[in-house]
């Protein structure tokens, strides 16, 4: 059990690899109080825009404020749900379509807490973390700014 939840590094440069996800899973092998892991992965969609097809998202952030916001989300989630551990990773820089830009990983003795915390954390990130995204379109440098709904 983690009793102290130190601020953790959330941002990574570029896409989050499937191998990184599997290493995170494997590292929970020794935490034998865990019964349920819920993982959320955000993947870049090749959306159709007026000016063409999205090929990548270029992420930037108000990094210091974002790290604080992530930390607050962690604290709230630990206070609200019976969690054993929790990890959040978010990309900065360019993430091509089909690649992963968000990895939320919560673990609990029981599935209910894992499901609820996973959803809570993802919604909080979408609403409250100052991350900005440029959807790059086609080959000619066109883009539109992304906005969460």
């Amino acid at each position, binding site marked *: 059990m983690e009793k102290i939840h130190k601020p953790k590094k959330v941002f990574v440069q570029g896409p989050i690899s499937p191998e990184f996800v599997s290493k995170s899973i494997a590292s929970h092998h020794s935490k034998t109080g865990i019964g349920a892991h819920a993982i959320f992965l*955000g993947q870049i969609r090749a959306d159709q825009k007026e000016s063409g097809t999205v090929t990548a998202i270029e992420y930037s952030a108000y990094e*210091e404020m974002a790290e604080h916001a992530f930390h607050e989300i962690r604290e709230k989630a630990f206070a609200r749900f019976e969690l054993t551990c929790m990890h959040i990773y978010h990309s900065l820089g360019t993430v091509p379509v089909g690649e992963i*830009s*968000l990895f939320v990983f919560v673990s609990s003795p029981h599935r209910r807490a894992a499901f609820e915390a996973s959803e809570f954390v993802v919604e909080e990130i979408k609403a409250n*973390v*100052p991350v900005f*995204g440029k959807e790059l379109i086609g080959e000619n440098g066109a883009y539109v700014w992304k*906005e969460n709904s």
Partner: protein
Amino acid sequence: MSVHVMYYGMLAEITGHANELWISDENLTVGKFRSQILEKYPALREKKFKVAVNQKIAEDFAPIDPSAEIALLPPFAGG
């Protein structure tokens, strides 16, 4: 007074820079700052943005002290 102001995402494109020193004759609240900035950059009127003071989203009534770090934040797009 003068405060440090940062522009993020599409707002930096509109203002033409990522940050600037904001000079004001009077003491500022977030609301006052907001009207000054819309006057200087009229194109911002069409954009949604929030104002963060010292890394917290602030309401219009909040005061801004001279050592504050101000940021203009466009809609969030994390995930």
